[in-house]
């Protein structure tokens, strides 16, 4: 919108673009604050996500410490509620989602043969909104009223009774939404517009496919969340009655709108995980992915179904029976494409010459443990049974199985898989394996007993419990402390790989790896591809399929 156009060019627009294609910008601010480079922005996202993972993790430790024994011992109930609320908000919006965007930034341009993302400056902004949004969200913990304590779902009327913090949470959510929408627009434009000639859609790596669909979901539902929290804001401060029955509104309406966002949101966190696992298993099974096209269609089907199943989160609010039945059957349909995926991963491994490096261990851990979470999801989908399970620890166990040994294990798998590519050094395989085994064992000690707690009737989001739940809670807390501590190994492995490791990584890194990112050096050049690469069976994994 330059109205001052005639006043001439400022020095910035005079920079000769061709000249610094292969040079990193100099100076700390130039490099990290003003960057338009997909790798630097990807690194920023990943480091930010890791910081948030430990912030949210510290809150989880508070929760598990309080629940170690029956009775109230460490924290006030209201602070406990703040911890459960903030833990969820931070892990969902601050850790898992930004981590996946970090992977998207690093990998998508390399995987499709592009120099960078399609809209590099907007890419910078997508990231740099996040630290401010989370500063705002975390600052609520220091306010007189404390942080939000009504759960991450922000159900009214409870959330409307929050103090000062409420408006800050709403605006922080708005900022996260703006960041996500811009990031997703960038991903879609990159994938649809920046592919190297010959990289047709059905030759794209599955990680690119899953992110294309994830980005679509994000653009479709983040504005709905923004609208929902805006209505909360106006109900609280400006006298509207959206969620107030006295004015003709309905608190349940918020739940419908929230979960119209919320259900696609959970797939936003898992679809890129499907993509990463679909990259890793073929590499270490030394076989092409079984049923590539079916995987693409299954991903699209899951995304479609995610829009029409939301009310299965609300079976106990008093819906008409026909609604309950519809949402039950629609939800169960999701098992079909998800089953296609699980069977395809297993079939990929079938008769492969497998080796078990750390990324493969995490990927196999993902397949096994995510499936447990998927199956408990099917149990929850049965309306009649859900009336019993709803808001118990069974639900907590279910979604933590799909998110922790699901999404987070896939993030770990991807991090180990591509660390040598990113840094040019090999990580410590020994410590990677130690990290995997301690994580895999402790995560089950942490979450498996919670199934029994929920089936026995222990409600979620309560700081105290009946003594009958004591043993399983103590076991779960011990698992939680081990799992939390073991993630420090991960940080150690990363720091060692980045700063200390002497073992140089080859371009291909893994013997069985296929795809354009592996034809680049390790670490890759600052701008991945200055001219489009050749696409054929020697460079990409799915060159021969679908023709």
């Amino acid at each position, binding site marked *: *919108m*330059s109205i001052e*156009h005639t006043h001439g060019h400022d020095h*910035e627009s*005079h920079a*000769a*673009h061709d000249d610094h*294609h292969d040079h990193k910008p100099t100076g700390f601010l130039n490099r990290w604050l*003003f*960057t*338009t480079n997909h790798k630097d922005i990807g690194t920023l996202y990943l480091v930010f996500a890791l910081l948030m993972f430990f912030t949210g993790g510290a809150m989880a430790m508070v929760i598990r410490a309080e629940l170690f024994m029956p009775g109230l011992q460490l924290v006030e109930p209201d602070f406990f509620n703040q911890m459960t609320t903030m833990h969820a908000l931070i892990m969902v919006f601050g850790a898992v989602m930004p981590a996946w965007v970090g992977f998207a930034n690093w990998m998508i341009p390399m995987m499709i043969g592009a120099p960078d993302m*399609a809209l*590099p*400056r*907007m890419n910078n*902004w997508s990231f*740099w*909104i996040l630290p*401010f*949004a989370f*500063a*705002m969200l975390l600052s609520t913990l220091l306010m007189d009223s404390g942080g939000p304590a009504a759960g991450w779902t922000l159900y009214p009327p409870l959330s409307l009774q929050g103090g000062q913090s409420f*408006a800050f949470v*709403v*605006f922080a959510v*708005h*900022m996260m939404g703006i960041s996500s*929408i811009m990031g997703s627009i960038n991903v879609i*434009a990159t994938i649809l*517009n*920046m592919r190297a000639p010959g990289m047709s859609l059905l030759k794209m790596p599955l990680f690119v496919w899953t992110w294309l669909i994830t980005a679509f979901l994000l*653009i*479709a*539902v983040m*504005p*709905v969340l*923004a609208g929902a929290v805006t*209505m909360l804001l*106006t109900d*609280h*401060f400006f*006298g*509207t*009655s*959206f969620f*107030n*029955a*006295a*004015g*003709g509104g*309905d608190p*349940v*309406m918020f739940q*419908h*709108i929230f979960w119209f966002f919320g259900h696609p949101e959970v797939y936003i966190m898992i679809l890129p995980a499907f993509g990463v696992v679909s990259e890793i298993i073929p590499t270490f099974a030394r076989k092409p992915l079984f049923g590539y096209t079916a995987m693409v269609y299954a991903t699209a089907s899951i995304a479609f179904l995610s829009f029409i199943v939301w009310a299965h989160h609300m079976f106990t609010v008093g819906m*008409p029976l026909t609604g309950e039945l519809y949402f039950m059957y629609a939800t169960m349909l999701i098992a079909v494409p998800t089953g296609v995926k699980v069977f395809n991963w297993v079939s990929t491994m079938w008769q492969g010459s497998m080796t078990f490096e750390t990324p493969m261990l995490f990927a196999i851990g993902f397949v096994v443990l995510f499936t447990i979470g998927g199956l408990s999801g099917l149990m929850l989908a049965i309306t009649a049974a859900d009336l019993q399970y709803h808001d118990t620890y069974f639900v907590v166990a279910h979604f933590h199985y799909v998110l922790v040994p699901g999404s987070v294990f896939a993030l770990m798998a991807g991090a180990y898989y591509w660390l040598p590519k990113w840094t040019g050094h090999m990580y410590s395989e020994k410590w990677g394996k130690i990290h995997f085994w301690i994580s895999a064992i402790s995560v089950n000690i942490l979450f498996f007993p919670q199934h029994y707690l929920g089936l026995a009737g222990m409600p979620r989001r309560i700081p105290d419990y009946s003594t009958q739940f004591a043993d399983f809670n103590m076991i779960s807390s011990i698992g939680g402390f081990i799992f939390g501590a073991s993630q420090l190994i991960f940080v150690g492995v990363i720091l060692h790989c980045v700063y200390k490791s002497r073992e140089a990584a080859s371009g291909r890194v893994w013997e069985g790896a296929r795809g354009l990112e592996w034809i680049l050096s390790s670490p890759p050049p600052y*701008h991945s*591809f*200055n001219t*489009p690469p050749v696409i054929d069976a020697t460079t990409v994994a799915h060159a021969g399929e679908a023709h």
Partner: protein
Amino acid sequence: MAQHTADQYYVPHGTKWPIVGSLGMITMLGGAAFWVNDYSLAPWAFAVGALILIYMMFGWFGQVIRESEAGLYNAQVDTSFRMGMMWFIFSEVMFFACFFGALFYARMFSVPWLGGEGTGASTNELLWQGYDAVWPTAGPAQLGGPFRTIPAFGVPFINTLILLSSGVTVTLAHHALKKDHRKGLVLWLLATVALGFVFVFLQVEEYKEAYQQLGLTLGSGIYGSTFFMLTGFHGMHVTLGAIMLTVIAIRSMRGHFKPEHHFGFEAVAWYWHFVDVVWLGLFLFVYVY
């Protein structure tokens, strides 16, 4: 400066504008959050944040426009911009869908249920006995007191005609631009801008009437809530669109845009058509039915 050809990729250099935008955003939204909590200095923080955001937009768009006019952008960059705008408009569609969803839910479910329909029989009997659920309603407690609604075939209908005509004028401007008919381009654009601001003016008058004479306010139960949120957000979008059109008109007067290369113009035109279509939905479901 080197022209970027289609077989070579273009990557823009770094810029300070995103971080300036983030600072503006946190100042403005943080100010808003303090404002609703009644801190006396908060409106100033809000205003400062808004000014920083405006400064960012001038700077960022200005830089992009200069680079575009200097011929730095190739066809691939143009396509990226187009996709970016289209998906941004899709996100806006979903934002409005959220409020339309609230309207439909209230009218189809929550209000009839409060009146005793379906599973709401006992709710009506025990809590809101005698509530006659007829739309428009301020709910069983008559929040905000009695009110009258704005008739569809008065100002809203005129506004419909105005927006539809502005869709025609912006298209005529586009045709003029494609034929390199600069005078037609500027005149039709100015006509569009004028129609846009007349719409906003009439909308403000309508709000004044609602508040001062009809007793219809944001607090008038679910009717007032959905009415003002939908028309209010739409009005904000029209205002923004009219400002965008103004910028495009000024750029046209300065000789920007070429018959075969004018993404900035098209993006604004798309946005304007989007605002137009949302209004048709509003006119039907908020005013007429």
